């Protein structure tokens, strides 16, 4: 039996109304685009981000994809997987095929219609992160006509849509004819997509200029021009925002964010993405290590003053969590709230044979987040866990983490897309890239869920898996980090926080200027 899609194939009227409320149906009654919004980016924009085929497994390229391109389905306000270019889809009961129906009348920026052929081309052309995984598991794509196609898998893969729609750029559609005509280089230099904004010009490392695509199927954007300026220095971004040179400044942290709150007319926008931070007890499988004792690990978690750290570093906007799994992920299990209880931490340490605390070794972290480490180490010292901070340059840190060269305690983090299963695969279960050791019951649960096609049963298994991770105190979670940005006085709707788990402003067609909405 096929599983119906969330598209408007059933309960037509109700579905249409709900979709309209979410803003995912065409809105043709809007005024012509007008004005300009200038966004100062904290990172240099890479042309690879203009091409869905090259999307790496990081969230930053989606900052561009949401402007220039459109996907079969994607995260939208109120919906983690809203139908976009695909109007509807069904999953075969054996989980081996996904049938899609495309939205009618959708055009690329060059006027060509979006067809099933383009969808097939885009999937087959995809070569970004997870390309190998997708290619191994996707058997073929059958195009039935211009608007219908079926993606067939080699084996049932419950996470297929997660990978296709959100974790990769494979489901973001480019025009086959155009790409083949201008070739890969030409497409990167002047990309054509089906998104709300058309590419106008790009000066690498300097700025990207986009112009509203009035034929965008969902609704014409309210803003005529979007300019992304690269301003690498955080203080300069803030100064530019204060002076009104830009309208949105990405990534303003700590003291500068505080300054932002004190500046009249400017507002702070905090978007909590999928980046969770935690302490990983790398030696917990070594019977001779103090970290082998679960009470010591629990004491560490109790020693962390989550609230104060959050207030000091992200103005209280990060979400305090007791899990390494982001709360916006599919199959998330809600653990008990984190508790800061130094007295109980000391009691647990005493029970574990450390009444006066102990020399706990090294605390490794990515140097760019050493500020978190400094505070946590102070918290730990208060209960007697004495550690030395070992900040490593980001890439060196993750390399050493992946190669299992780090000992004692590792301050880990990940903002990778996915769901609870993909996060567990990388950080919890045997064989994972960043897994120093594992527990048989958790490994068994992971294998079990991977073969389970019934969603409810799979969810139950993944919940159990997360509970085991929590109970065993494999990690001491810190927070799900907020990404803080500044918004200038001209902006009406900034788009921050509309899409859950997305740190940047989006969807761009929803952005408005005050008085011009």
């Amino acid at each position, binding site marked *: 039996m096929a599983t119906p899609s969330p598209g408007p194939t059933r309960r037509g009227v109700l579905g249409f109304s709900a979709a309209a409320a979410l803003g995912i149906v065409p809105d043709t009654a809007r005024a012509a685009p007008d004005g300009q919004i200038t966004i100062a980016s904290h990172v*240099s924009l890479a042309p690879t981000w203009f091409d869905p085929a090259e999307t790496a497994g*990081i969230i930053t390229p989606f900052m561009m994809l949401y402007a220039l391109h459109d996907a079969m389905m994607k995260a939208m306000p109120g919906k983690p997987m809203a139908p976009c270019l695909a109007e509807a889809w069904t999953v075969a009961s054996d989980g081996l095929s996904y049938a899609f129906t495309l939205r009618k009348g959708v055009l690329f920026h060059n006027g060509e219609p979006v067809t099933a052929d383009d969808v097939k081309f885009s999937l087959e052309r995809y070569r970004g992160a997870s390309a190998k995984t997708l290619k191994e598991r996707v058997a073929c794509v059958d195009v039935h006509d211009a608007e219908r196609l079926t993606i067939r898998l080699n084996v049932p893969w419950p996470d297929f849509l997660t990978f296709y729609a959100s974790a990769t750029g494979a489901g973001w559609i480019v025009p086959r004819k155009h790409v083949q005509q201008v070739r890969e280089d030409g497409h990167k230099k002047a990309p054509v997509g089906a998104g709300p904004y058309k590419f106008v010009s790009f000066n690498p*490392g*300097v700025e990207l200029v986009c112009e509203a695509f009035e034929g965008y199927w969902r609704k014409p954007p309210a803003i005529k021009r979007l300019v992304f300026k690269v*301003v690498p220095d955080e203080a300069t971004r803030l100064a530019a925002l204060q002076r009104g*040179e830009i309208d949105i400044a990405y990534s303003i942290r700590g003291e500068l964010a505080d300054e932002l709150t004190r500046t009249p007319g400017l507002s702070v926008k905090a978007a909590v993405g999928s980046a969770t931070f935690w302490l990983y007890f790398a030696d917990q499988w070594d019977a001779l290590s103090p970290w082998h004792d679960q009470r010591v690990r629990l004491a560490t978690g109790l020693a962390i003053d989550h609230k104060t750290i959050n207030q000091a570093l992200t103005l209280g906007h990060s979400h305090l969590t007791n899990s390494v799994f982001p709360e916006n992920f599919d199959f998330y299990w809600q653990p008990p709230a984190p508790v800061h209880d130094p007295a109980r931490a000391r009691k647990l340490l005493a029970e574990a044979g450390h009444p006066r605390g102990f020399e706990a070794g090294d605390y490794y972290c990515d140097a760019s987040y050493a500020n978190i480490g400094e505070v946590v180490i102070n918290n730990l010292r208060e209960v007697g866990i004495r550690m030395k901070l070992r900040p490593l340059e980001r*890439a060196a840190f*993750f390399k050493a983490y992946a190669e299992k060269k780090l000992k004692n305690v590792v301050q880990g983090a990940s903002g990778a897309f996915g769901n609870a299963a993909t996060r567990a695969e990388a950080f919890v279960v045997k064989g994972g*890239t960043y897994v120093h050791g594992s527990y048989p019951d958790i490994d068994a649960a992971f294998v079990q869920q991977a073969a389970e096609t019934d969603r409810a049963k799979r969810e139950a298994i993944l919940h159990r898996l997360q509970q085991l991770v929590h109970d065993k105190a494999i990690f001491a979670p810190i927070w799900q980090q907020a990404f803080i940005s500044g918004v200038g006085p001209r902006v009406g709707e900034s788009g921050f926080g509309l899409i859950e788990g997305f740190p940047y402003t989006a969807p761009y067609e929803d952005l408005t200027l005050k008085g011009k909405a």
Partner: protein
Amino acid sequence: MKQYILRRIGYSLLSLFLLSLTIFLFVRVTGDPVALLTEPGASQEDIEAMHRQFGLDQPLWVQYWHFVASFITGDFGQSFYYRTPVLDLYFQRLPNSLLLAAVAMVLSLVIGIPSGILAAVRVDGFWDSAGKLFALLGLSLPQFWVGLVLILVFSVSLGWLPSSGSGTVWHLLMPAFTLGWYFAAAHMRLTRSSMLEVLGSEYIKLARLKGLPEALVIGKHALKNALIPVITLAGINLVVMINVAVIVETVFAWPGIGRLLYEGVTFRDFPVVQAVVVIGGSMIILVNLLIDILYALIDPRIRLES
């Protein structure tokens, strides 16, 4: 003379080889660029595929050979990050760097030379002390601090100048001053010491004994000779300003080569870093070579001693 020039060219080529080898090895010591281009949690297969794509799976000597070959052919390869030819990126940024460097150089000379002369002429007096203080501040104040203070004062508080970017003459003022001040201080110090040396020489004493006006002695006879090392230094400084104004260009979001280098280092974009360093280094080596040849032409003792 011919032998002298050939020897200097040989030294220059050796310097270039050592420079290329050093930067090639140095960037690789910083770590794996793929680690910065993938999210933590990326599969080993994806990481390896990216290594293959960038040729980082090849032995070091093969990678070095590709780098040298690309340099000889004037190609420099593709940027890992921007996925565009490095030379295109370099030439896109070059006009901005030339403009900034030219204005900063003019500022540094206009400020540095007169203040150096004044300090030398009024040695141990008020102007000398003021010049020394100016030079001390110029050389010791960090450029990022100077830049941020200028932004706070002239952009945020007074609202007179744009905080960042490029496009108008107003955009140019603060970065040019920040960059120029450091070099003005260096030029001032060298002008002062050079002038003091020249002012103590016999021909200046003779000029004064002959009753030439002081302005003529200083402005014509002393300055002409005192400026030779200053101009030499300015030539090399100009190359440095063009290629490695990293901090100034980053703070002011000025789209020049210094920022390209910063981006290259940040993203471990080996081809970009290698190209900027080798091109900048080649310019300095070339300027030095030309200076050596010119000195030898002017002063026969140099070529004979060599």
